[in-house]
């Protein structure tokens, strides 16, 4: 591990060590060590995808990481995941809210143009956002903003009006607000010109070649070309990396990292806070409705062991607060540690039934998820709590258990915003309130965060919110999995952001 971290430090250069550990500080655009960025070269990158799930539409449901990568290189979103701030401008150079935080004005970046040379106008953005909103999952992607509340104001300003105050609206425009030319016909979508750092050379069955957009509004792009190869399994991608067929294996996972560890010619790139795998306990009914029982569960998990065994050490211990990558994440709330005696006392106080066996439902949707349930069950056994792990197939899980069950594991891929989770999964009546939690104090703290523009007052409210979440929510968050890429030593400037931040390849350059 130390070896890896040292390698990372060497590659990270201008970035502080803290940036590697907690994704704060540093700047994606800062020149990396190993000399100054060099122009030229072709990056061969592998990404996961299945031929049956291929989607070319930037506003479609991208089941494939490979497709999302290609789309994100060709098209720009309004905003993008950032480092110091979790949301930074991309096609929008600025975004400002009204006083009531309901109206947001996005300014199209100076010099932004489509690959055929046409400048981007506010009308193109409005058309694209409305198109996105009109897709089957549009309401989930632009929550609270209906199509008629997306309008143009002049040539370069787009106005979004939310149905409710939303301080985090720009955060929601990071992932799928890809901008196409106004009026692009359905059949032309796959080859439609974008505004991104790379232009599409060819695309075939999930694989693609892209070439540099020399006129990109975001600055100089170093690589001449990017070749994207789709891999159906992490294993095949890892093998291709080991045999030198690709330069980067994107999001290949901990197993591949373990295999590659012995190889000096392969760098393991860790992107912290990539995936949360919480255990969800139903708060409104059932055996975990008593906050004491929930706290006991949070006390009987051995977090270090979970990270070491479930994640092969490629991860960090967490503190039952979701959104660990948020710059505003409350690091000062004391880390909850294993305390079997206290857990047993709490359970006895709560009149917990030790004779029963409790079912913990899990899936094999992401690597390590089912293993986390099994290991937790064996840890709970040490405190006399009997847990039986029940594996469910993904489809059945979402139909029968998710949002309904008493006790289940789940996973989340966007972890750089505390508020994102609060709004989506923790406030009373939220659409995906997985633990069916309702807490007046938490709701009040959330409302305060959302409606406060003042930075200091907002930070205080945000800390309050996290303290309550830590104390009594239905989430047991034992740790965070790193995102893991493998890279050849010549590749510099790879993104270190969790989640979809991994697709930002414009700062990548190749050493000779």
């Amino acid at each position, binding site marked *: 591990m130390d070896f890896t971290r040292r390698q990372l430090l060497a590659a990270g250069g201008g970035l502080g060590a803290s940036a590697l550990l907690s994704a704060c500080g540093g700047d994606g655009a800062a020149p990396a060590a190993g000399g100054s960025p060099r122009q030229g070269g072709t990056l061969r990158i592998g990404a996961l995808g299945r031929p049956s799930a291929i989607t070319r539409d930037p506003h479609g*449901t991208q089941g494939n990481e490979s497709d999302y990568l290609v789309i994100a290189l060709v098209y720009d979103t309004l905003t993008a995941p950032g480092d110091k701030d979790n949301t930074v401008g991309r096609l929008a150079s600025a975004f400002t809210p009204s006083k009531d935080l309901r109206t947001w004005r996005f300014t199209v970046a100076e010099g932004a143009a489509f690959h055929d040379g046409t400048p981007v106008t506010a009308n193109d953005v409005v058309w694209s956002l409305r198109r996105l909103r009109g897709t*089957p*999952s549009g309401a989930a992607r632009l929550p609270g903003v209906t199509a008629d509340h997306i309008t143009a104001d002049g040539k370069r300003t787009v106005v979004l009006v939310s149905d409710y105050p939303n301080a985090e609206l720009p955060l929601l425009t990071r992932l799928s607000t890809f901008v196409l030319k106004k009026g692009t016909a359905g059949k032309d979508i796959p080859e439609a010109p974008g505004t991104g750092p790379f232009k599409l050379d060819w695309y075939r069955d999930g694989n693609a070649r892209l070439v540099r957009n020399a006129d990109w509004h975001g600055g100089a792009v170093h690589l001449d070309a990017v070749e994207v190869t789709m891999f159906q399994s992490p294993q095949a991608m890892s093998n291709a990396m080991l045999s030198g067929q690709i330069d980067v294996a994107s999001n290949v996972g901990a197993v591949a990292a373990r295999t590659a560890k012995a190889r000096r010619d392969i760098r393991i790139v860790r992107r912290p806070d990539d995936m949360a795998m919480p255990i969800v306990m139903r708060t409104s009914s059932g055996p975990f409705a008593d906050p004491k029982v929930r706290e006991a569960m949070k006390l009987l998990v051995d977090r270090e062991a979970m990270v070491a065994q479930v994640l092969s050490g490629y991860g960090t211990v967490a503190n039952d607060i979701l959104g660990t990558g948020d710059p505003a994440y409350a690091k000062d709330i004391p880390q909850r540690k294993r305390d079997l005696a206290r857990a047993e006392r709490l359970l006895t106080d709560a009149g917990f039934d030790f004779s029963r066996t409790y079912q913990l439902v899990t899936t094999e949707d992401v690597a390590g998820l089912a293993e986390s349930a099994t290991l937790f069950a064996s840890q709970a056994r040490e405190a006399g709590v009997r847990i039986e792990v029940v594996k*469910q*197939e993904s489809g059945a899980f979402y139909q029968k258990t998710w949002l309904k069950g008493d006790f289940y594991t789940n996973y989340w891929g966007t972890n750089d915003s505390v508020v994102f989770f609060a709004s989506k999964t923790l406030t009373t009546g939220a*659409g995906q309130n997985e633990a069916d939690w309702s807490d007046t104090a938490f709701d009040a703290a959330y409302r305060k965060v959302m409606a406060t523009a003042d930075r200091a007052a907002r930070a205080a409210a945000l800390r309050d919110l996290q303290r309550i979440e830590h104390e009594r929510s239905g989430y047991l968050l034992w740790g965070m999995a790193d995102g893991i890429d493998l890279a050849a030593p010549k590749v510099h400037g790879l993104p270190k952001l969790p989640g979809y931040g991994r697709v930002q390849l414009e700062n990548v350059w190749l050493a000779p």
Partner: protein
Amino acid sequence: MTETGTRPAEAAVRPVPKPAARRAGALAARAAAVLAKRVLMLVVLLALVFAAIELLPGDAATATSERGEGAAGVAARRRLLGLDRPVWERFWDWITALPTGDLGTSARGERVGDLLAAPLPNTVLLGGTAFVLTVLGALALGAWAAARPKGLVDRAVDLTSTAAFALPEFVVAVGLLLVLSLWTGWLPAATVTGADGAPATWTMLVMPVLALTVPQTGWNTRIVRGALADQAATPHVEAARLDGLTTRQVLLRHALPGAWPAIATGVATSTGMLLGGTVVVETLFNHPGIGTVLAGAVADRDTPVIAAVVACSAALITVVLLLADLVRARTLGARS
């Protein structure tokens, strides 16, 4: 094995000679009858596929919707995909459109025909090469072993072919990967395609083809060897041997012709095994064929895609089985 064992005996029964024209007509009628039976079987098989996917937990709507979508969103998606209609109705729509070449639409809104257009030739190339190598390898090894029954070669071939057949493609593939790529670096570990959708170099085909060929060669070697042994016991081969012909002449001119029907049936059944094996092998080597499409479609509960892949493979297998029948008919005919 018992089935293939009876065929050569059947071949020895000499049919009553018929005029050539009547024989051709009878052959055509027989082929048509066999074809009709196979088409009916295919329809039943596809109905079973629809029913089986219906029995799997979850459906295409839940499998392909985004997690952000609520129950209403999933329900809307279910309506969009027509999953709210009874399964027999969906099957009827799909199967009646099939003769027009319409394979339906995938759960992600792509034309299934387009989805399979590129991977199908890749699988045919992979499976076809493996098929040819299997036939050649099995014939060579089987004949070599039969040349001297109970000899050293015969015993060695017997042992290795049994072992090879017992090895799953997965094991062979991983072994090949380790030795030929990761340790020695001789061959590329994964298939990478170029702008034309075909593997970038032919070397990428070597390991996938071998992984499919080894187990099937094991199986077919045993069939060839068995069929030749049956033939060796027939009077005309016995006579040829007693006439003092060389082993080679006896094998190739006298034993092999009679063994063809059994061998043809054996390799024909291998077609199905080869196509089944591609699912595993293609995923392991990242070969862009229909096996990988199928694996993904099953995970998505994407019935039209699964049914289309089954229909394509079944059509391929049917063609090969028909060819095997023709070989059989020709051999029997030649005897009359």
